[in-house]
């Protein structure tokens, strides 16, 4: 039986400073995150100057109930919703907490956007007059520099990695037809000028089929083996090929279809399906470069298939798989039913009338804006206004976001998203992490995905391991956290 697909999304946001284009992105990202921390902690008048983001703050608490610093020299905080907010590779990054289902992971991804919006607002008072920090939820600057939006899925360690690579690659090459975020032009070496609009932000930057790299020679399947959990039982599949989606529907489809395919791999549903794409890296770009969706990819058994046909073949197996037991590894019956309907409707529309998805999928919404604007003003494809539309689509400020104006359909309740900014998921260990930070933040010396380290004042530091992402849930620990008046009482109750 496939194991629960605990999942989440980590997003490196693009960052720039209006009024100071040459600002150092690392310092600015630090200002942004510190501003959020100070605001969320209600520390009005908090003296930013005295906090040096360059210090090694190993084990040092911010002395607020909402965050602690993690073990690195850059700004690095953990939020009460269980997420991690930090500076990574010169970008602000939000890593969602561990979620029980794609539906929940969508909510915590949107909660991340809300965190960044609040951070931008909070950062205004730390910036010189005339300067403003703006963040973008995208993956490239249009000049050959890319930054990632990674997904993580929990898998059963007993599934051979080679099988995952073989069965997952054709899915990853083609899923961009519904989860690509769209891009004007291309940054792939040698292709400039040859592509007007493509499906994906990231396809230009992938050069290998399998590998460990994430910043150079990026591979379609990333082999990073860092489970942040019991390594004898679990694998964390680290997916680096996705685009940062703004559309809730694109995000849900990306997470949901991938979680289903991974469950199918675990349960052997794809063992009989002979579908392997020749030259996957070439195929990835070929698919991305054709928003008409007519491009074909060659398979190792001599067939020529469109990306849509490849996706239908995965969907067909998923439908049979669903009839077996409802795919409980991916969510409730209701959630999985919704997912499959959405997947099927989307593929059907992509086949008959892709533009009908202009309020659903990011790439279609963006292409609709770009095409319409180009026609209205009789612009050439190289006009900077079209590149500006591409960029501003991902501006997360409500007053500027073009995605917001595209009228994208939503799935989430904004009140729920607002709550998810502070409240952790109840069904994973993120609950224990988030609630301990909220209640015993003063006594937490360090936090990580798979442990919390307590400093109760008198004893040596005490580490509470959290090696199973499905332990430490509301049901497991809420009673104990409620009745404990101190971290010491909590630790005694845990028997730690």
């Amino acid at each position, binding site marked *: 039986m496939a194991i629960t697909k605990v999942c989440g999304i980590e997003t*490196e946001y*693009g*960052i*720039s400073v209006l009024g100071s*284009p040459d600002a150092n*992105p690392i310092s600015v990202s630090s200002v942004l995150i510190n501003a959020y921390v100070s605001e969320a902690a209600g520390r009005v008048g908090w003296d930013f100057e005295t906090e040096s983001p360059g210090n090694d703050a190993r084990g040092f608490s911010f002395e607020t109930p909402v965050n602690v610093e993690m073990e690195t020299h850059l700004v690095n905080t953990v939020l009460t919703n269980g997420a991690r907010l930090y500076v*990574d*590779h*010169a*970008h602000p990054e939000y890593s969602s907490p561990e979620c029980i289902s794609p539906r929940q992971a969508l909510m915590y991804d949107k909660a991340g956007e809300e965190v960044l919006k609040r951070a931008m607002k909070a950062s205004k008072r730390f910036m010189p007059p005339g300067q403003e920090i703006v963040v*973008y939820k995208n993956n*490239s*600057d*249009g*000049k050959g*520099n*890319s*930054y*990632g939006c*990674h997904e993580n899925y929990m898998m059963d360690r007993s599934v051979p990695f080679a099988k995952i690579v073989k069965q997952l690659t054709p899915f990853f090459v083609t899923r961009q037809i519904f989860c690509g975020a769209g891009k004007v032009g291309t940054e792939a070496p040698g292709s400039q000028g040859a592509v007007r609009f493509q499906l994906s932000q990231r396809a230009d930057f992938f050069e290998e089929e399998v590998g460990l790299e*994430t*910043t150079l020679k990026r591979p379609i399947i990333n082999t990073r083996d860092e489970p942040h959990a019991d390594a004898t039982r679990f694998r964390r599949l680290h997916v*680096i090929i996705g685009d940062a989606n703004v559309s809730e529907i694109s995000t849900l489809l990306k997470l949901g279809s991938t979680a289903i395919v991974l469950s199918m791999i675990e349960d052997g549903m794809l063992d009989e399906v002979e579908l392997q794409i020749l030259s996957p890296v070439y195929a990835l770009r070929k698919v991305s470069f054709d928003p008409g969706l007519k491009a074909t990819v060659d398979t190792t058994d001599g067939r020529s298939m469109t990306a849509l046909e490849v996706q*239908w*073949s995965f969907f*067909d197996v998923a439908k049979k798989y669903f009839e077996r037991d409802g795919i409980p590894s991916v969510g409730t019956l209701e959630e999985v039913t919704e997912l499959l309907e959405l997947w099927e409707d989307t593929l*059907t529309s992509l*086949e*008959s009338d892709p533009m009908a998805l202009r309020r659903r999928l990011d790439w279609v919404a963006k292409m*609709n*804006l770009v095409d*319409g*604007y180009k026609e*209205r003003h009789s612009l050439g494809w190289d*006009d*900077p*206004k079209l*590149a*500006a*539309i591409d*960029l*501003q689509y991902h501006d997360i400020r409500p*007053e*500027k976001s*073009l995605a917001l*104006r*595209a*009228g994208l359909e939503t799935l989430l309740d904004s009140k729920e998203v607002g709550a998810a900014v502070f409240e952790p998921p109840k069904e994973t260990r993120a609950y224990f992490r988030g609630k301990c930070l909220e209640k015993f933040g003063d006594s937490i010396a360090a936090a990580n995905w798979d442990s919390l380290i307590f400093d109760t004042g008198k004893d040596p530091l005490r580490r509470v391991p959290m090696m199973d992402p499905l332990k430490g849930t509301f049901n497991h620990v809420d009673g104990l956290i409620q009745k404990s008046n101190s971290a010491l009482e909590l630790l005694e109750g845990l028997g730690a």
Partner: protein
Amino acid sequence: MVEREQKRKSQTQRDSEELHEEDVQAKNESAEKLKADLDDLLDEIDEVLEENAEEFVRNYVQKGGQ
């Protein structure tokens, strides 16, 4: 796969038969509405798009990440 294609094809046939029965005028109206929606959207883009697009795009330079 083959079965799936047949199912989809028959669905498409049904759709097109229904379409033929639809009032042509209604279709024109919906096309007009589509165009009006897009026009409104483009008006809004004209309002909020960064004024100096060239500078905006040129200044957006990021350090590479993951």
